[in-house]
């Protein structure tokens, strides 16, 4: 009984962590699934989302425009809601710019896209450093979602409940968008057979632009949500891109539910090793990856690979 009482908070924490990991991986999954581009700039765009949010949330955030004062005069709760909309749009514009640069790499060796996004990641990180400085920054949050929750003897972060709930909401909305709207159908069709989609008269160039912008906006949303947990510093993106990559490979490239399940698995593994063998907590997700890929090379819910035919 004592064992279960000890274990239960860690299991719940693992689920919460997993939802956050899934949120981080969503944008990455969308871009790699539809466009077959491993977007190594995902982490930097994640960081950029946090910095855009910083600029919109506080006068210390570096936004010198007079119109911004209107935003700063709003109650913090409203400001946060507006930031959750505006900052991802801003990052989506940057992402679309990156997609335009990527166009010449389509249909060529995937290494070109990989190298280009890697270069973009370095440039974006340096731009962040130049614009906002190298010091740690802090985004103020509405008081209603900060502080602690008391559950019996245990204290847990209120913000984590909010972040996990938000992750569930985002997963649900993205699923509805992909499954229940004509735009989602187009995206899925584009991922399945882009030439056929083009032959049916769909503007593939515009579709790719939209998907890349949408994927980077999701990265920005994850960056904003994770900011109060991981902090805001120029290189915070590195902390996001690695788990995102692991989750996508683990779940199966292009699989929506694969990414969600893999995120939950990674969260659970990190959470439980953190509780029982903390020094293994970082390496645990990679061990999980090796185990899964050893027995199922395409990941948990990935499409069948040519190698398996």
């Amino acid at each position, binding site marked *: 009984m004592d064992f279960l009482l*000890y274990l239960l*908070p*860690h299991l719940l*924490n*693992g689920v*919460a*962590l997993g939802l956050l990991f899934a949120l981080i991986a969503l944008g990455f999954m969308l871009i790699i699934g539809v466009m077959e581009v491993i977007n190594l700039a995902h982490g930097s765009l994640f960081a950029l989302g946090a910095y855009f949010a910083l600029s919109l949330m506080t006068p210390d955030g570096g936004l010198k425009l007079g119109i911004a004062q209107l935003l700063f005069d709003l109650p913090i709760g409203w400001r946060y809601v507006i930031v959750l909309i505006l900052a991802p749009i801003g990052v989506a514009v940057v992402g679309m710019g990156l997609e335009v640069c990527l166009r010449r790499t389509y249909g060529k060796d995937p290494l070109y896209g990989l190298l280009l996004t890697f270069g973009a990641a370095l440039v974006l990180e340096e731009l962040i450093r130049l614009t906002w*400085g*190298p*010091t*740690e*920054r*802090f985004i103020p949050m509405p008081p209603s979602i*900060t*502080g*602690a929750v008391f559950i019996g*003897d*245990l*204290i*847990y*972060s209120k*913000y*984590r409940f909010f972040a996990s709930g938000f992750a569930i909401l985002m997963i649900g909305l993205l699923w509805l968008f992909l499954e229940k709207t004509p735009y989602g159908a187009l995206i899925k069709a584009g991922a399945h057979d882009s030439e056929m989609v083009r032959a049916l008269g769909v503007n593939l160039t515009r579709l790719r632009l939209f998907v890349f912008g949408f994927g980077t906006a999701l990265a920005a949303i994850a960056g904003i949500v994770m900011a*109060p*947990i*991981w*902090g805001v*510093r*120029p*290189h915070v993106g590195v*902390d996001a891109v690695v788990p995102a990559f692991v989750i996508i490979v683990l779940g199966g490239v292009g699989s929506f539910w694969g990414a969600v399940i893999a995120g939950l698995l990674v969260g659970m593994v*990190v*959470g*439980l*090793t*953190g*509780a029982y063998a*903390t*020094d293994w*907590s*970082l*390496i645990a997700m990679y061990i999980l990856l090796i185990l899964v890929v050893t027995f199922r090379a395409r990941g948990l819910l990935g499409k069948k690979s040519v190698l398996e035919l």
Partner: protein
Amino acid sequence: MKIKITRRALLAGTAATAGVTAFAGPWKHNRVWAQRTDKPILIGLTHDASGQFANSGQDEQRGTIMAIEEINAKGGVLGRKLSYIVADTETTPSTATRIAERMINRNEVAFIVGAIQSGVANAIGQVAQKYGVVYFNTNSSSPTEAGKDCQRVKFVWDGTGANFANAAAANAVKTFGKKWLLLTNDYVWGHNTSKATRTTAVQYGADVFDEILVPVGTRDFSPILLKIQQAKPDVVAAAVGGDDFKVMRQQTVDMKLDRKPAWLNNQQDWPDVYGLGIDSVFGVFGTTWYHKLDLPGVEDLVKKYQARWPDTRIDVPGNVFYNGYMAMHELAKAIERAGSTNNLKVIRALEGHKMSARDRLQHGDAYIDPVSHHVQQTIYMAMGNDKPVDKTDYFKILSWVGADDAKDKNEATDCKLQPLDKTPSYEM
């Protein structure tokens, strides 16, 4: 064409080759090119500009550069100006090794100054010892730096984890309780600091019942914080640094665990906390300096810093800047005392050198321990300030401990300095 080599020509050639080799040969032997010259003394500044300690590295750099500018404004050293080159050590020991080699062999620096991370400091120290180049580890505070990894050419300017543990542990056992849990960053500084904390705490009656290893790069502390809650310690003694510490602090404060249990955070570097708000400072911690110490000269230094670095986000100097600044000034003074840039003479001028509290802008006198090359100095214990006088007043200084009381006694046994006559000699 037939060439005839006479015995005389052979002897002359051999002598000429030996002569050139003696002067131009590898660094190991001798460097005397610049003797009796007025060319600037070149200093290699090894400061992190990227990686986990980038922010601290840049703060340290502000200290060393400001000191160099002040020294040059007063005419330099021995009539020569100081010049410098800066390289980013990337918080990575292998990069630090490469940079130290390049600075010594290609740039021909006379001295090397700078380090935040212990692995980086140790890497530079090893290269510096190979060539005999005097090296100042300004801000890395692993006890091993002045212990088993000490070097004849290396001087350690920051307080180490052992100093902070000595200053805090006795008081913490008495005030907060005996049930202790250690939180250890899984690298050299973390392990050595926790080891020193354990030794001191146990000596004062603490029961250290668990030690949690925190991998470097941990971004989620929630499982650890839950574990701590379940274990119910009186004191959590944390040796967690850099970004890991920032993330841990943020998550601990968010979970409202910053008041209970009591947190003993070994050392709090100013760049790691400044800008996050006074509320983000938690626990009891050590520092070597604070910009609101009520001592002559402190206010002047703050004003000079603000005049020189008006655009930095760190509005006032902290301990990391201070260590870089003081170290550079002491290097210049040591060269003056030695009357030469000869490394062995400078080392002798530094060993055992006493620095007054007034010059150090601290409450107690300091000295460079000739046994370990560690600057034994005043250690302050502090906590978050509940009555700040302005927006920069993050710390409340609780007490201070003099150099000898904070001293790590193990340094005397752990540190084995190489003999001076086995250290390569040079003069630039």
